[in-house]
């Protein structure tokens, strides 16, 4: 199996974004995932969000682990550098990459196996560091690539394709993120393109770690009756908590949202993340209420949208007192302490 370049059919009339690119310019190689796989919808949503935000593709770094989900990165943004790392280790690789050059936009893609089992330590610590990246967890309740074993996100009572029933409690990445200090936590569904694109936009523009847990059904191994990560089950219990979208600095906010319900959060670039609460009692800046909402066992409801946001946490670059100028662009003469200092240093060694 080799990778196929997506055929480019240029449509003259295709709409262009602010930097003159069409949505197609954000494509990657052709997907080799199963037809109907939720992950492909996430790929499309990501490409759309980058297109809408007019981000130059080559100013993006896309990093992933291993799994069907982690292949996503090659299916979009062919002009961006990508790294398909090792299983469960996308967060550390992304962290180092970010340290080397804070001026790029970083997004990582992972799966529930990649993130919640083998890679759970790395994911937690990336959240703790508030590394400035979008982290998309394509969650299907199974290990797709190794043919359908339960993952750590499988719900109690969920039935595997071969009939076994899961009886261990699931790890909810959003609850996990809340407990370790992630600054942007959202949940969505590959079947809800509109919500997902907006959350991705907001997550990309949020300064700090932005987690989006995307329920993304595996049609080959976990889309049957009895599965709690199937399309059918997700549509049935899907509920929307808070809408979120990013509005660039220049755009008029009122046009899109009713002021009465909206809650703007001004970002460092002057843009805003606009939240629109569908449940008036819910406050996405309150960590403990967010936690009790998503861990409520009395309902099968899948709460989606922006679950939590805190824009006041310092991100990894700030914590490390980094300059705006990327580390990988500092000329050697500024890095070299010089001969005189070497002499000075050695005085203490005599």
């Amino acid at each position: 199996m080799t990778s196929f370049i997506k055929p480019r059919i240029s449509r003259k009339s295709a709409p262009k974004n602010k930097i003159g690119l069409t949505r197609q310019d954000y494509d990657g190689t052709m997907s080799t995932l199963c037809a109907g796989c939720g992950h492909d919808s996430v790929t499309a949503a990501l490409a759309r969000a980058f297109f809408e935000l007019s981000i130059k593709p080559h100013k993006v770094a896309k990093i992933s682990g291993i799994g069907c989900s982690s292949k996503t990165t090659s299916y979009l943004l062919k002009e961006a550098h990508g790294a398909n790392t090792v299983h469960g280790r996308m967060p550390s690789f992304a962290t180092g990459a970010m340290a080397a050059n804070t001026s790029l936009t970083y997004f990582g893609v992972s799966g529930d196996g990649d993130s919640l089992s083998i890679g759970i330590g790395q994911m937690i610590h990336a959240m703790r560091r508030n590394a400035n990246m979008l982290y998309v967890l394509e969650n299907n309740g199974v290990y797709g690539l190794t043919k359908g074993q339960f993952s750590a996100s499988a719900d109690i009572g969920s039935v595997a394709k071969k009939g076994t029933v899961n009886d261990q409690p699931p790890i909810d990445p959003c609850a996990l993120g809340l407990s370790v200090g992630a600054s942007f936590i959202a949940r969505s569904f590959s079947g809800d393109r509109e919500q997902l694109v907006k959350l991705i936009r907001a997550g990309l523009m949020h300064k700090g770690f932005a987690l989006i847990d995307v329920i993304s059904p595996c049609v080959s191994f976990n889309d049957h009756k009895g599965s709690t990560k199937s399309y059918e089950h997700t549509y049935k219990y899907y509920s929307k908590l808070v809408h979120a979208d990013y509005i660039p600095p220049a755009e008029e906010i009122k046009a899109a949202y009713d002021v009465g319900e909206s809650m703007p959060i001004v970002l460092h670039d002057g843009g805003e993340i606009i939240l629109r609460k569908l449940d008036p009692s819910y406050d996405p800046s309150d960590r403990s209420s967010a936690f009790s909402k998503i861990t409520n066992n009395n309902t099968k409801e899948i709460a989606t949208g922006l679950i939590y946001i805190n824009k006041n946490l310092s991100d990894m670059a700030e914590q490390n007192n980094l300059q705006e100028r990327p580390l990988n662009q500092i000329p050697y003469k500024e890095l070299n302490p010089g001969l005189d200092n070497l002499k000075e240093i050695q005085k203490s060694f005599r």
Partner: protein
Amino acid sequence: MTDNQSIKINDFVIKIGTVNGTGSASANELLMKAIFRMGVPVVGKNIFPSNIQGLPTWYEIRVTGEGHAGRSGDVNIMVSMNPESYERDLDSISIGGILIYDSTWPRPHFMNRADITVIGIPLSSLCNAEFEVARSRILMKNMAYVGAVAAIIGLDMSIIYNLINETFEKKRKLIPANIKAVGLGFNYIEENKLNNKKFLVKSLDRTSNKIMIDGNTAAGLGAVYAGATFGSWYPITPSTSLMDSFSKYCNLYRKHPKTNENLYCIIQAEDELSAAGMAMGAAWNGARAFTPTSGAGISLMSEFIGFAYYAEVGLVYFDIQRVGPSTGMPTRTQQCDINITAYASHGDTKHIVLYPADPGECFTMAAQAFDLAERFQTPVFFLSDLDIGMNDWMVDDLEWNENYEPDRGKIMTSKQLADIEEYSRYLDIDGDYIPYRTLPGTDPKGAYFLRGSGHNKYGKYTEISSEYKEVVDRLLLKWKSAAPFTPQPIISKSLKKTNYAVVAIGSSDGAVREACINLEKQGIYIDYMRIRSFPFADSVEDFIIDHDFVFIIEQNRDAQLMNLLLTETNAPREKLVSIKYYAGQPLDYKFVHDALFKEIMANQKNKKTA
């Protein structure tokens, strides 16, 4: 034997046994520095437990006017401050030596050894009489034995006072107490005429243009001078002080002059898997990146190391070896990671490994490691050990080439990309097995997808046999081609032509050199080759083939170096004789000497009977 004959000048060993956590380290260092400042070369070895407080610890100072670099294996003056180790300490003293102990609690059984001199000093009662606070009584006891030893070996007291002044420059209040404590020990020896003048230090001029430094400090400093900007790590003895050094000097010299922002980034990771991933991510993104660790960390990093090898990302792994397997003896030294660093990770992987022998080489080889990693776009291991990394060694002043520019290897710029039709990550355009890399964020045309899965020379995913093979075959050639660019072996020929040779790496060097000198005095001539890198230079094989008996000296149980030589060169098995020491202490020359002597004698006897 007259008194005069038994005087040893500038050639003896002082060993100090204390309890760890009692603050003796700085007193011992002061003693060693005082000797060093009298122009007399010294070798310092800290033999410490994996513990914070309460276990026996020793510090050994070899006074060596001739400037040997290793241990001698003798103990001539034993300062025994720890009742728990009295028995061991007593046993360790060489014939004719001196035992100094705290006679506040007399130990008559010490007198059982008639072949040594026992000097009891009531250190505790002296200090208790002078100092109020419990903690300072403990600390001042250390300074008091320094004073006693200074009197016995005839140190220049003004140097000691200067050192005390320098040490407490920022806490000047403490100076009088320390000077007083030194005086307590010194005066006790003088007043009671306990100085038998058997071991003396006499000023020389053999330490100018020399410094005392440990290898981790030197390597961390080397990373700063090499222009490394990113380091990730997870604490592990004996590598921790390497990152401490990098951090210290970055803090001093790597701040933006106006904004005080950092021109470097250090991240303490959650484990070594993550440390390896971070360093690799940073390297992929164009930073000079490294991670320091020890064997256990290399085990955890292995998956990432194979990824970096196959995807061709250059970064430096500092492995400061300690005794394995498993947790082993974390504060003892060994050369036990020769195998794992040569081939770390699953699948066919081979790495560049550098073997520094002392802190001076740690400084220069750290920079070389970065240059090699970026030039060959591959993991480079810097294989030091606890002995080099954590002990203070006397080495030549560190020198830095003013015109040094980092070798960043082949990075294709936007301008170069504009001139080509299409960019491919793994094409060997120049025929030197090294492809061009591009940095993320620089040019749309330069984008590529880094992957540890099968890829062809264009960087595209492949499962086609010939495409896969083409890439891994080039990787092997690339690795081999690095040999001439790595530090070459150092060959020391003996005075006469000989069939005997020894081969060693790293911290065995001092002991091996001294053993050879001693054997030469007895008419046994041996050539010596110190290998400094892997892949082995051609001269390694030539040297072995040129001799009939080649002794491979190394500090591990399984003869890892010998086996690596057998695997990677055409050295004939029958020529090689393995000599191994792996009990965890820094190698001493007597061990090497005796082992070589025995083997050579047996060989000569065989020859005669044959």
